[in-house]
């Protein structure tokens, strides 16, 4: 077989392997040719070797697997190719976030204790999701009837939220203040509307006071450094 013929066979084999979407054996590849033009087995194997060489330095390679030959995307490109198949993540439910918050602040905590505080049952799905995400793990079982698992947060949880330790979580007191501040803002707005006095100084005063309070309650420690991460800050600077 001359070089031109070889190239022709090589192109057909290449096209067939790319179109098949499954591995093809040497004989299956030979079957693509009519009898009078069918390459011998050795020729086909030679062509496959040429094809393998032709893939050098490209995005895909020829691989021999149990059921024949196939083209395969090179492992090197998996990080990019993988993004093709990423599903758009959905958002977590409020129930899940509440559960996570309780585990973070009250660990080690059992499911029953979470349910007591939330006033509703916690679905197994939520716990499983949190465990799969590796934010939460079982640290033991409480020595009470039923021996319920006790949950705690993980290193990965801290890493994800950019915390070096649980200390950096805003203290519960502050979260309550936050709520207070929110209510105060609302009151202010109501007052403004009632008195119909769009005085610019009022909100500014309030906001300054709010800021003071927030920083005071944090006691010099800074659980959340960037302003956009701090809900109390954004609340007070609303006006």
């Amino acid at each position, binding site marked *: 077989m001359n070089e031109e013929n070889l190239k022709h066979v090589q192109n057909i084999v290449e096209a067939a392997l790319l179109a098949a979407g499954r591995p093809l054996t040497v004989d299956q590849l030979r079957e693509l040719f009519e009898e009078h033009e069918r390459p011998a087995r050795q020729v086909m194997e030679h062509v496959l070797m040429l094809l393998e060489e032709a893939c050098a330095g490209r995005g895909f390679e020829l691989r021999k697997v149990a059921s024949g030959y196939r083209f395969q995307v090179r492992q090197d490109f998996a990080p990019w190719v993988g993004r093709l198949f990423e599903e758009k993540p959905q958002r977590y439910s409020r129930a899940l*976030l509440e559960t996570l918050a309780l585990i973070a602040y009250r660990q080690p905590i059992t499911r029953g204790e979470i349910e007591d505080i939330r006033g509703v049952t916690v679905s197994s799905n939520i716990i499983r999701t949190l465990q799969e995400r590796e934010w939460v793990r079982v640290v033991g079982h409480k020595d009470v009837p039923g021996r319920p698992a006790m949950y705690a947060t993980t290193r990965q949880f801290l890493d994800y939220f950019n915390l070096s330790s649980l200390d950096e979580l805003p203290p519960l007191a502050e979260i309550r203040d936050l709520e207070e501040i929110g209510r105060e803002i609302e009151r202010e707005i109501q007052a403004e509307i009632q008195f119909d006095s769009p005085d610019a100084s009022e909100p500014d005063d309030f906001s300054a006071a709010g800021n003071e309070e927030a920083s005071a309650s944090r006691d010099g420690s800074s659980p959340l450094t960037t302003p956009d991460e701090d809900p109390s800050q954004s609340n007070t600077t609303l006006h």
Partner: protein
Amino acid sequence: MTEPESGSEELQEQPAVAPTEEGGQAPVARVDGKPVSDLPQDLYIPPDALAVFLEAFEGPLDLLLYLIRRQNMNILDIDVSEITRQYMDYISAVEAMRFDLAAEYLVMAATLAEIKSRMLLPRQEVEEDEEDDPRAELIRRLQQYERFKKAAEDVDSLPRMERDTFPNSAALPELQRGDAHPSVDLREVLLALQGVLQRAELFTSHHVEKERLSTRERMSSILAMLPADRFIPFESLFTREEGRLGVVVSFLAMLELVKEELIEIVQAETLGAIHVRARTSK
């Protein structure tokens, strides 16, 4: 892949090619396996052949186009008399044996008859013809149809999937599981907690107080370190590098764990080694 058409339409496929060819070399129909390449001039058509013949056409316009082509006529110069005669002959022959001849063929027959009769009459007024020239209308329709008949052939000859080309793919490498998890802002967690606290206050007298988080965290980590089945030395739970504060936190955490009966601390003899064991199972 599924057959898109009913069987009868497949039938149309084969002979349909014929009318487009000039000179009638290709068979227009097959009767008992024998090709019928042209329809006899004397109009003796075997009944079966005629049925197949008509099915080969996509309607009266298609049949008319075929007749015009066969006469080597230009669409623009249809000899209405001759075409009408042939058309009528065909459809009356079909009608004679088939009762379900499509209405469209009959409407066309009527149209042709009308055009023919008008052409034979002396013209009275030019205006009338300009506004309502049935022949021009027929020509227009034939031209339109011819355009799209050609367009259909063009579309059919476009290189298409599964016939002229095939999409390519290759097997996937091992893919790392991407970060398909939802992203969460810490503020969302805090807001969620705020919600819980609010409700907790409403529903129960639960006290969720400000906690020494470092202690609770240490409680978790000590629990994680402790094997349930054996004691480990008390000292091993402290990390020298953490300094005094770390030791205090660990100690407080252990006291809390003892209080909650989660760990057990034993000392075999006074001033002897202290050992710790989890009272929980993992």
